[in-house]
């Protein structure tokens, strides 16, 4: 392993089993005494109701002493059949379902579904809509990473940063609420546009957030990045190599922490991301600590993107947020009441819903947890034949046994936290 940017060198005093003084170097694995217990293994059931499993995840662990020999994850406790339900809903009616999959970043999910349907129909949305969707995606990234960092801190024993971070998260939720009327179930987008434009003065609130939020992040950086316990619990723990990360289909910060420079925003740009200036942090060691560094830096970069998007919003004041296409967007009420053609469009859309042509489309976007993909198959009716969610944290979690086996039981909590799972999305 190469030299770290933040090297930790700390040994704490402690007592061994016989009560003698020993120095216990943090983070150093004792190898070679695996058979100290004569090969007797223990079965531990962790979850599904356990605060450190971040939802209803159940892990069955086979322990040899304190070393994890096997880890069998069980998922599905939160299965709601969203994909099945989507086959019975119009495209715009699916958007509320996407809120409830990855409920820590609802706006980004909304954006992905609208984009998948627009790809299916060959629709390009206006620039103001794109900028607002970028804002929605980056706000989602920040709140999702805030929850991740706060709860991971708690898992490892740091409570204070959790409070600081959730305070910041509330500020974004306030912004989401004043934009969409809902804190969590935003249902922001519609096929071909947005449910609503931002209210007057909303940019000032976001601008204020962008100015003050990095200060809090720097405080958390001070608390965590060089903290001996944080380093000891995270450095060299849960390591996965770049080749293995690709082979396990990991995505997002999990993939980049392993040194694979792949970000959908850079490599398959959507919503005009190629026109924004931002850096993609890439890790080196593929361990918990690098995942932390990657996500921390991503929040700074998201703030950068938000600031640039705010600048563009000023230029696009009053520009349309919806595409001018009667197939997907309702005509204004005044026209629907006076113009025959508009009334027909209004009627057909309300009664039948949006009808894409026969075909299929896969739209992948860089969600906070990784690549979220929606794969829509249409047979020409107003309801999709198949709505497949490619859930990033489902695939990230599937590599958990690979990362856990050989680690200590206490590391399982830290590794599981570093994966950043959300069970609503894994179980769907």
């Amino acid at each position: 392993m190469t030299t770290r940017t933040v090297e930790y060198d700390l040994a704490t005093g402690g007592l061994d089993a016989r009560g003698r003084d020993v120095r216990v170097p943090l983070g150093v694995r004792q190898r070679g005494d695996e058979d100290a217990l004569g090969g007797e293994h223990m079965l531990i059931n962790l979850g599904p109701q356990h605060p450190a499993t971040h939802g209803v995840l159940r892990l069955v662990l086979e322990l040899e002493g304190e070393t994890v020999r096997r880890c069998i994850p069980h998922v599905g406790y939160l299965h709601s059949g969203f994909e099945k339900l989507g086959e019975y809903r119009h495209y715009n009616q699916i958007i509320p379902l996407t809120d409830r999959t990855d409920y820590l970043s609802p706006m980004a999910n909304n954006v992905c579904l609208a984009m998948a349907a627009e790809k299916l129909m060959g629709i390009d949305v206006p620039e103001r809509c794109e900028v607002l969707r970028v804002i929605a995606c980056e706000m989602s990234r920040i709140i999702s990473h805030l929850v991740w960092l706060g709860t991971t801190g708690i898992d490892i024993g740091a409570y204070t940063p959790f409070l600081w971070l959730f305070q910041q998260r509330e500020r974004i939720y306030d912004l989401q609420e004043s934009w969409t009327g809902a804190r969590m179930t935003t249902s922001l987008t519609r096929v071909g546009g947005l449910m609503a434009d931002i209210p007057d003065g909303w940019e000032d609130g976001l601008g204020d957030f962008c100015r003050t939020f990095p200060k809090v992040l720097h405080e958390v950086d001070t608390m965590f990045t060089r903290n001996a316990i944080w380093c000891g619990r995270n450095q060299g723990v849960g390591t996965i190599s770049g080749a293995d990360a690709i082979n396990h289909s990991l995505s997002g910060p999990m993939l980049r922490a392993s040194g694979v420079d792949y970000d959908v925003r850079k490599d398959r740009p959507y919503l005009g991301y190629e026109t924004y200036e931002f850096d993609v942090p890439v890790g080196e060691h593929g361990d918990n600590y690098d995942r932390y560094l990657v996500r921390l830096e991503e929040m700074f970069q998201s703030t950068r993107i938000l600031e640039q998007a705010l600048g563009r919003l000023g230029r696009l004041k009053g520009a349309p947020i919806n595409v001018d296409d009667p197939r997907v967007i309702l005509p204004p009420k005044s026209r629907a009441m006076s113009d025959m053609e508009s009334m027909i469009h209004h009627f057909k859309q309300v009664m039948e819903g949006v009808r894409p042509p026969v075909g299929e489309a896969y739209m992948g976007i860089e969600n906070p947890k990784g690549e979220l993909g929606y794969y829509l198959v249409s047979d020409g009716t107003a309801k999709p034949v198949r709505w497949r969610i490619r859930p990033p944290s489902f695939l990230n979690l599937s590599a958990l046994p690979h990362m856990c086996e050989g680690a200590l039981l206490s590391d399982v909590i830290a590794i599981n936290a570093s994966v950043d799972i959300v069970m609503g999305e894994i179980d769907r």
Partner: protein
Amino acid sequence: MSVPSSSVAALRERFGDAILLHAVLSGDTIVYVRADRAHEILAWLRDEPGQGFNYLTDVTAVEYRDAERPIEVVWQLRSLERKADLRVKAELDKAAPLEVDTVCDLWKGANWLEREVFDMFGVQFRGHPDLRRILMWETYSEGYPLRKDFPLRGHLSRAEQTRQALAANPEAHYSLEELSIAEAFHELPDDVRERLRHGERGKVR
């Protein structure tokens, strides 16, 4: 937008009539391959230097509302270096057993994805190391939820589902495999072992 990926020509040259047809929809290239040669073709796409589809984005299946149409198994491939995507599909006739070779040996990420396709559509992946249900529970026996002949609310009434859930014995929560890894199974009393062996919750039909 409607130009197919260069991989199509290469695939046709290499595999001939195993490549059934190709299409470009919404800018994505789709290649239909023969189901019995899908594994070979996917392995070639991964390892051939000019192709390099080293990343398996997704594995899923599609069943159409038209009952005559076969079920499609869909592999979404990506080359991280070339930044190219390819969608490979294989059709499985519903009259025959729904079977296709696993790609777990090529991509470990396929493990859970194939389990989900099995769980939701009943497609068997030959050679999969651990083909169990993943989102539904192991003793679930109402069928495969994402099949079109599966009603939205399930085969059983809500009352019957509730009755079965209440009748389920939480003691039988551990599967045989989990008990055996702890080597605790052999220490259980004979009658408990016998009950667990037959599955405490049993089959509902």
